Each structure stands twice: as structure tokens, then as C-alpha cells.
């Protein structure tokens, strides 16, 4: 029983990571650094709250969330694909922009500096798994990385996307429209991370200021720790979520301070990048300006 409760909570925590890191994999495999996941999720969470509040429907909220994520991603695309701006700088700035924009429009629409009014999201009855299976976003989240894996390895577009991220010049020489593939990748990653943002807003039944709280960076950590391979990335997400769950469950026992559990994903990522054994090697053209 305790095990199932643990598993259910792990999945609940993992869903936003699974969505966002699915977006991270798509983006980075196409050569675009995914520092922006945090910003996609935050804008999407706000749009999802807005959509489901004013549209009075969870479905409107989900589509608004996807829209918010995609729009944010397209802004990133305009800067780094169209104008070839530096991906790191624009990526960091887009996260700052998302914090500022959501705060500004929180004041504008709901006259609050902390949170939106309550939104319905999906009504769940019961606890643990029984509640979890009623949420369609949970199912989608569990499938997200599997779908990305299928897309990358089983479809022509996926093959092209990987080629663009490894060696754009070679891809171009065999007729792959490099920039167009990157546009598709960036929009897709925004939509996927957007679903993660919508899930967060629904799960907490409101939007709160800076509610993503670094989850986009944990998803990026999972993307890297999972070596940009969808299967491994999914395992990384579940692992990070399990660590958090363990920390929450053991909080009263005070075995390990919460701050040390928080560090786990980040420490593992550094170890993976610096790994003496089986080092994580990013896509060759990641972050490079393509002329």
C-alpha cells in the first residue's frame, strides 16, 4: 500500500518533468539549447489558468496552455533561428521575460500579485492511483517521451531533425530544409513543455507567481542526464521525482535536509557531463549558429 502511494506521488511529481523534458529532447536534438523550458512552462501555466477560468472548461485551458508554450517558443525561434541570436542569452532572457509577463498580467487580469482565482482543472475523486488515472494529462505525460522516441527514430521527419542537430550542413546537402525543421522542433518543444505548464496549473487549481519553481531546469537536467535519449530521459525524470517524493515522505523523520535532496538532479547532471565513464555527449551542433 505504502509502495503504491509512493509510486502515485512520484508519477504526480514526474508529469511536468516528463512533458518538459520531452520538449527538451526535441529542441536539443535539433540543435537548439533548451534553457527556455522554464519560460515555456510558466507562460503556459498562466495561459492555461486564464483559458480555463474565462473559457470555463479544462479543454480550453489545455489548448491555451499549449498556445502559450508554442508562442513563447516561437519568440525564441524568431531570435535564434531567424536572426541567429545567441541561444544562451536569449534563453536566459526568455525565462526572465516569462516571470515578468506573468506577474504583470496577473496584476492586470486578476489584480493580484500572488495568484489567480481557483480554476477547476480536472475533477479527481479519491486519492493515489485512483485519482491519478482520472486525469487525461497524466496519461499524456506518461506517453510524451515514448511518442517523442517514436517520432525521432521511426519517422522521416524525426531522422531529419536528428540530422539537423548533429550536422546541419550535411543535412542541407541532402536536401533537408534545416531552418524549417528547426521551426517545427521549437514549436513542438514549446507545445510539449506547455502541456507540462497546464498540468501544473490544473494540479494546483490556480496559477501562482513563479509556480514552475525551477522545474524547467530539472527537466533540462533530466534531458542531459538521460543523454538526450527519450527512454533514459524518462527514467531520469522518474528518478528525480522519486527522490523528491522520498524527501516529502521522510520529512518528519529529518534524515536528510530537504536542500540536499533538491541538489540531486543538478549534481547528477554535472557528474554526467563530466563523467569519466560514459560521458554524456550532446548533439554535435547544439547551440551552434547555422548560417
Amino acid at each position, binding site marked *: 500500500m505504502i509502495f503504491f502511494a509512493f509510486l502515485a506521488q512520484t508519477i504526480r511529481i514526474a508529469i511536468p518533468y516528463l512533458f518538459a523534458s520531452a520538449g527538451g529532447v526535441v529542441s536539443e536534438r535539433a540543435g537548439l*539549447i533548451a*534553457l527556455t523550458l522554464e519560460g515555456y512552462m510558466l507562460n503556459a501555466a498562466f495561459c492555461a489558468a486564464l483559458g480555463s477560468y474565462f473559457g470555463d472548461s479544462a479543454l480550453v485551458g489545455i489548448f491555451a496552455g499549449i498556445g502559450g508554450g508554442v508562442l513563447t517558443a516561437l*519568440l525564441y525561434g*524568431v*531570435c535564434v533561428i531567424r*536572426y*541567429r*541570436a*545567441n541561444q*544562451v*542569452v*536569449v534563453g*536566459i*532572457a*526568455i525565462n*526572465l*521575460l516569462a*516571470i*515578468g*509577463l506573468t*506577474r*504583470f498580467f496577473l*496584476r*492586470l487580469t486578476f489584480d493580484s*500579485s500572488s495568484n489567480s482565482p481557483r480554476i477547476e482543472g480536472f475533477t479527481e475523486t479519491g486519492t493515489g492511483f485512483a485519482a491519478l488515472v482520472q486525469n487525461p494529462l497524466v496519461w499524456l505525460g506518461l506517453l510524451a517521451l515514448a511518442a517523442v522516441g517514436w517520432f525521432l527514430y521511426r519517422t522521416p521527419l524525426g531522422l531529419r531533425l536528428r540530422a539537423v542537430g548533429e550536422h546541419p550542413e550535411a543535412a542541407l546537402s541532402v536536401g533537408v530544409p534545416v531552418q524549417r525543421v528547426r521551426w517545427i522542433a521549437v514549436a513542438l518543444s514549446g507545445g510539449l513543455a506547455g502541456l507540462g505548464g497546464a498540468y501544473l496549473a490544473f494540479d494546483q487549481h490556480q496559477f501562482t507567481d513563479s509556480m514552475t519553481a*525551477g522545474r524547467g*531546469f530539472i527537466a*533540462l*537536467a533530466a534531458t*542531459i542526464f538521460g543523454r538526450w535519449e527519450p527512454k533514459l530521459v524518462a527514467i531520469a525524470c522518474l528518478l528525480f521525482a522519486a527522490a523528491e517524493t522520498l524527501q516529502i515522505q521522510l520529512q518528519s523523520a529529518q534524515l536528510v*535536509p530537504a*536542500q*540536499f535532496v*533538491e*541538489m540531486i538532479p*543538478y*549534481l547528477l*547532471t*554535472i557528474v554526467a*557531463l*563530466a*563523467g*569519466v565513464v560514459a*560521458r554524456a555527449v*550532446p548533439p554535435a551542433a547544439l*547551440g551552434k*549558429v547555422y548560417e
Partner: protein
Amino acid sequence: MTRAKLEEALLPPIVALLIAILVGDILILSFGQSPAAVYELLISGTWGNAYGYGQVLYKTTVLTFTGLSVAMALRAGLFNIGAESQLAAGGFAAALLGLILPAGLPALLVLPLYIVVAGMAGAVVGGIPGALKAKFGAHEVITTIMLNFIVLALLNYLISTRFNVEDTLHTAEIRSGALSRLSDYIPSFHGSAANTVLLLALVIVALAWLFLFRTRCGFELRAVGLQPHAAEYGGIDVGGMWWRAMAISGGIAGIGGLNYVLGYKHYYEEGFGAGAGFLGIAVALVGRSHPVGVVMAAVLFATLSQGGLAVNALVPKQMVDVLQAVVIISMATAVPAVHRALLAGKRA
């Protein structure tokens, strides 16, 4: 400086500012206010009175440190996204030193000690990603971001369990070495946090300029940043320069912690950096990674930060967070665009 060079240096910031003003207008209008009134309040609330520009100078000080930190790494071809945690580590180390020192020592005597300790703390946090890049090829962008989270979590643990004054998230006051505020010399600054660490910032800026443009090591650092392969061929130890540049960069950010700890509150407090490390990226970018440009950009961003508080009565202060992000994005986008346009013009 030739005319083309000057155009390339000045056009992007101007374009970025114009776009920011445009976005600002839209935000202000969406809130039902007049842009002219808001911008007027922004200027009068910052440079229009002594308290306002005292606060701007205080924020300029820390942004000069973090901006110079990021700029120094950029000159070596590296992205230091970790200034936020390097700043915090420097401030924390300085506060600990302040708790150990005997009371009543003259500030000028212990100041060098504080600079060394804060700088060392920042240099360690910055040097680790540099060494990881040199030794294992780990990308410094990712490692500095991850280290931000790790170091800030560690400091949060230390300040919430070990070194705090009960029921707060700050340390006790340092026992000696506190520096004076500018209001001690110029009474009209009264109430503002501007302090003599500003002078230290300007000294460090001058030293950074001398180092970059007048020493052999600075030349090598810039060579590595411009063309690492050529630098290596020219006999420069590129890996060694990477970790040294990151350590210098982190050290500068670490010394920035003194602005709060020695100059303002005289203790370390959780979250005192408040995003100054991330804004340092913007400052370095707008300042084109030049020490003098960094100071000017620091003044600009400090004015915006303080201006947000000034306009809060009319529009949400978060407006300036948006504007700062817009400046960074349009600056980053305008730099390569202007470069290409000028290049095309030259060819034509």
C-alpha cells in the same frame, strides 16, 4: 575607433532601447495609463531626487560587479551564468569572516581581507565549472546553471540551520569592517543604501581594463576567447586559461557581495542577490563586454530596477522586469543582425 566599429558598437543598444520603449508603451497602455506620465515618473523617481539616485548608485555597484564578472568570462569565450551563486557565496564568506574577526578593527585595515575572502569564495564557485570544462569538456553554461541551484541550496541550508539569528534568515552583524554609506559624506543621500563599495567597484573596473588590455595574461585571455584553436597553436594553454578566466569571473562576482554585507546591512541574508547575477548577463551584453561599457550598462539597468519601484503607483513594477528581458532579447538579436547588415553594406 573607426566609424564602422562605432556603429557596430552603438547601434544594437539603441535598437534594443527603442524596442524596449515600444513594448513598455504597449504594457502601460494596456494598464490604462499614459506612457509619458509613467516614463516621467520613472526618471523623476530615480535621477530626480537624492534618495532616488542614491538607490540607483547602490544597485549600480552590485550590477557593475556581476556585469564585469560575466564580461570577463565572455572575453575568454565562456558564458558564466553562475554569477548569482558566486555573488551569494562571496557575501556569505564575507559575513562569516565578519563574525570571526575581533570587534573594533579599523575598516581600511580589514577591507583587503574581506576582498580576498569574498573573492576566493566566488572564485571557487566559478572555477569549478571552468575546470570541468578544461578537464572533461563539460559545457560551462549547464554546469554554472546547475551549480547555481546547488550552491544556493547549500547556502539556504547553512543559513536556515547553522548561522542564522533565531527566526530570521540572516546572520548576526559583522563585528568589524563595516563601511560607511555615502550619506555620511553627502547628507542629501540620507536613507539610500549607496555606500563606499561603489569606489571599490570602480577600482576593480579600472584594474579589469588594465588586465584585459595592458597585460600579457589579459591578451592571452582575449585570444582564447576570439579563436581558441589559433590561441592554442600560438602556444597558449587554452584549458588553463578557461579555468583561470572562470575563477577570475567568479571572484569578481564574489567581491560584489561586499556591497550588501559591508556596505549596506552588515550581515548576510538569504536571497540578497535578488537576481543581480542574472542581470549581470544583460549588463555585460549591453556593455559589449568592455569595462567602461559595463559601468554604463549597470547604470541603465540599475535605473530600470529602481524605476520599477518609482512607477509602481501607476503600473505594476513588474513592467520593468519585462523591459529588462526585452532589452536583453533585442540586444542579443540585434548584435548579429547589425553585424551582418554592416558587413553586407561594406561588400556592396
